[in-house]
């Protein structure tokens, strides 16, 4: 029977980060992914959408976390190759980019608080009112001239990441380091024994002796994690709520300013680009015209999701944004990605939680908070490694 120090069970980025760190420290790991491949769930966001709007203390810490240099500090050590920064003197157009974009929050109610906080943190925020606020917002049609009562705060130097490039780079690195045989995708019938884990992968049953198991609880694994809790006659110490997120991709008539991420009501709006925001970036001839809209949906139970995907509420908020606020007469939907993520409470500074699922001698550790903004996911993966060290 083969033996490893740790078995990590998950389908996203966090177990890869943990594995990379543990292997660096000389530990042997086996990665079990119940999905056919990594990132099928797509549970990492490229930036913090600040939703639900955090309380003052949490907003401060989350602004700090989202700041470009902090983001680089979290992400760079975990990535094997170069991580490029935009704007900057980019060298490798295929590397993951951390883009420095300003956040423009259009909100009368939040403007004062955000202005003071950002100023305290040294972001040098700017306040816009009326037509200036309108012009600075990505995607607003020049036809819209009525800007009465609009007020916004622009916070510069917050970062967002090429999620896909980053996590694929980490996956390639981890695969190379630990060997393809130490990663089993499509693992099913995972069963915990006293000192081993038994599972089915590639049609063959396997049993691996190990000292510790870590389960990374992402929304897709909910039913499996809960079934493990039931089998262990335990209640999960936290029961996170799910929130639906829709990422719409629409084509704008005019090019968007790639340097700004706008917040309008609960929506985040930005120019969808990969790599550096430069004309050489892969686009379909519509350079900077692809507008991404991230819309948080309702908090729900897993079996409720279908009721709210692309529902009337989604179209109403799109209409409000695009037709009424941006004054477009039409819009072209290029894509819609729907995902459910665990809700981070506005009062929490971090969503990271873990507890041990008592099961004989082997006490699998369940980790929550490994989905959502990528910086948080990477930090959670690293923290697990530290705790295990």
């Amino acid at each position: 029977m083969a033996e490893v120090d740790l078995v990590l069970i998950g389908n996203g980025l966090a177990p890869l980060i943990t594995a990379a760190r543990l292997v660096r420290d000389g530990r042997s790991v086996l990665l079990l992914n119940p999905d056919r491949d990594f990132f099928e769930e797509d549970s990492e966001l490229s930036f913090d959408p600040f939703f639900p709007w955090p309380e003052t203390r949490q907003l401060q810490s989350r602004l700090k976390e989202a700041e470009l240099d902090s983001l680089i500090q979290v992400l760079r050590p975990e990535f094997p190759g170069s991580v490029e920064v935009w704007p900057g003197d980019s060298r490798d157009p295929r590397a993951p980019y951390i883009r420095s974009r300003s956040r423009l929050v259009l909100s009368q109610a939040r403007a004062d608080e955000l202005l003071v906080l950002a100023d305290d943190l040294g972001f040098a925020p700017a306040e816009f009112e009326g037509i200036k606020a309108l012009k600075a917002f990505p995607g607003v049609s020049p036809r819209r001239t009525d800007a009465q009562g609009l007020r916004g705060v622009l916070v510069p130097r917050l970062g967002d990441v090429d999620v896909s490039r980053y996590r694929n780079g980490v996956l390639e690195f981890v695969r190379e380091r630990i060997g393809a045989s130490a990663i089993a995708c499509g693992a099913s019938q995972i069963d915990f024994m006293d000192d081993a884990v038994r599972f089915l992968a590639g049609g063959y049953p396997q049993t691996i002796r190990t000292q510790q198991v870590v389960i990374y609880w992402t929304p897709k694994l909910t039913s499996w994690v809960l079934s493990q809790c039931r089998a262990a006659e335990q209640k999960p110490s936290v029961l996170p709520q799910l929130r639906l997120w829709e990422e719409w991709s629409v084509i704008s008539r005019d090019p968007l300013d790639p340097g700004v991420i706008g917040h309008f009501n609960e929506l985040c709006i930005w120019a969808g680009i990969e790599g550096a925001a430069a004309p050489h970036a892969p686009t379909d001839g519509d350079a900077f015209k692809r507008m991404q809209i991230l819309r948080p949906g309702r908090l729900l139970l897993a079996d409720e999701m279908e009721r709210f995907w692309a529902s009337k509420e989604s179209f109403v908020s799109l209409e409000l944004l695009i037709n009424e606020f941006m004054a477009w007469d039409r819009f072209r939907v290029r894509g819609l990605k729907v995902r459910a993520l665990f809700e981070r409470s506005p009062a929490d500074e971090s969503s990271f939680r873990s507890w041990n699922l008592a099961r004989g001698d082997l006490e699998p550790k369940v980790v929550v908070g490994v989905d959502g903004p990528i910086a948080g996911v990477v930090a959670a993966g690293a923290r697990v490694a530290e705790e295990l060290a």
Partner: protein
Amino acid sequence: MSLMFREGALDLLILAGPRLSHWPSVGVRTLARITADFGLNVGVYGGDDLSPRGIMPLPGTGAIALLQDVQGRVHRMRGRAIARIGARAELPDPFDGWYSDGLIPLSTAHRLIGAGDRSHLSWGPATVILGTGNAALQFGVDLIERFGVEVACIEVNTQWGAKRFAAWEVIRRRFEVLGGRIIEARPLSLRRMSAQLWELRVEDARGVKILEATRVVSAGPFRTTAGLREFPPGSMLFELEATASPSKRQDFEGWYSEEERARALAVRIIKGLVADLGGRREELDRIQKRARARLKRIEQHRLAPFSPSYQGKWVSPGDAKQVRAFAGVPQTEHHRRPVASIECFEAIVCNLCETACPEGAIQFSKDRTEILIESKCTACGLCLPACPSSTPLLLQEKEGAANAQITLPWRNHKPWRVGELSTLVNRRGESLGSGRVSAVTPVEGSTAPPMQLVQVEVPAHLAWDARGLRRLGVPDERYREGDQDHAARIEIQLNGERRLVRDGVPIVEALYETGQSRPREMLFCPDGSCGMCQVEVDGVKKLACKESMHPKLSLKLERETGAPDPDLLCPCLKVTLNEVRERIRQGKLESPEAVISATHVGEGRCHGQLCIEGFRRVLASEGLVGADAWIDWRFPWSDWVLTTSSNVKNQ
């Protein structure tokens, strides 16, 4: 000023994918009929009334579908099962220059060729067709018969079982008799030589060949495709490939296979959704068994083909004996009077001649040991025009006579007259000698080009080899290039320049006729569902397939700049084949979703309509398990335009 939003739920949603030639097809009708008959609530959405925009799979089974009606209202339907009817896969694996206006898929070619005996698009002097399926060869036959152009079909995949091409032997024979050529080769590059001439380089076993063609039509099939998929497994989300043509005669195999696949799908859906079938389980099992058996028969011709071998121009003695002993050809009666000879040697699923025979003289037994009942045949000749491959003929071979009589169907603008001499050709289209036309019978109701049954007196020793006619010496005057009615032309402005185009034709068609088309117009759909052919008409962006030419129209075309990469896979996002392969190998990616997330294939304006089949074949060639069964469910299926008049409001 608000779009209504309606919610609904049904057991089964049958949804039209983009670019379907006709709706509802035979498969849709079969699927809807059987499932409704078993008590399921079925919704059929497509065509002009309700356009499906895409689905979002639900956890477990079923999906939410979003549809839009003609008034712009959005309908959100929940389906316990989904059947998407997808357009036929017609585009080839990427090669240098495939994404150019020199290459069009077969469905576009059908739309451009139009009805009647004139095409305003030039197909001559030569057209190349990629693929050797029945639909491809049938289109080749059509081109030759209607316009007298040279046609070559290229088989790029030689893995068709015992056969080295995809089509039925009878259709290949028809194509070759008319002078069409079949080449086994791999396309290397397609480059423009002049406004209406392209150079296609292909590589065969002997090296590189250069073919000059007015146009390259991509027809396929390029691999054996599933035709019916479920993805993810057990999700009740299905895709049925639409292979049926509007008429059964146009492509019998496509029609038949779609109908049977729909039948098999109906059984799967009913078994998945109906908890208690009661006494109808046996009935359902019978349908399933029949569909399975019939689907198996469709592939039979590739496994056990019969294609007579030749010694020079003559069928080899062994095979000649086999031909004469075949159950479809007359054994005795033809020595006394003309009798039909059904020379359909392979076990194929077509039975058009059988249904056309009023006397019941043609009856295919299951094992095909009985086909022709000579005594019943009255030589009425009705089976001759019924066969799309012109396989049946009438044969009279009096013992001891110097000449025999054969009657062959003839479709051409230049009819035969009694007494004319014709060149006789064998089953491979090679000249054997000459014969004299002894009788001519026009076929009533035949569309352009008109059909005749031509009786020819042939030397007795050619009676079993001569299977086609050609005119002696001079080429047929079937189509005169450029013979178009200039009086009906109007003047328009195209990117600021004056152009003459036909009045009232769709803009896409006019662009092809004037040589101004762009590669993105290759998808040319009948209903704007592909959303690719956007142009600026009188200052407003519109779809070129939905707008017609009118006098003084001002047209602006957005041109694609830069030469495309030689191994371009996804033209919208300029993703190359090598990039995809590299990502799969480097990242050891194991699922199509992971490859898409790394490469973004199909995320451009075509939503995968140009590249997803090629992408699927790359995945399969790289060894990704289940690539053939994978379905791209990304929402929406093509660009979805919402206007201010289509806003959302409470109902």
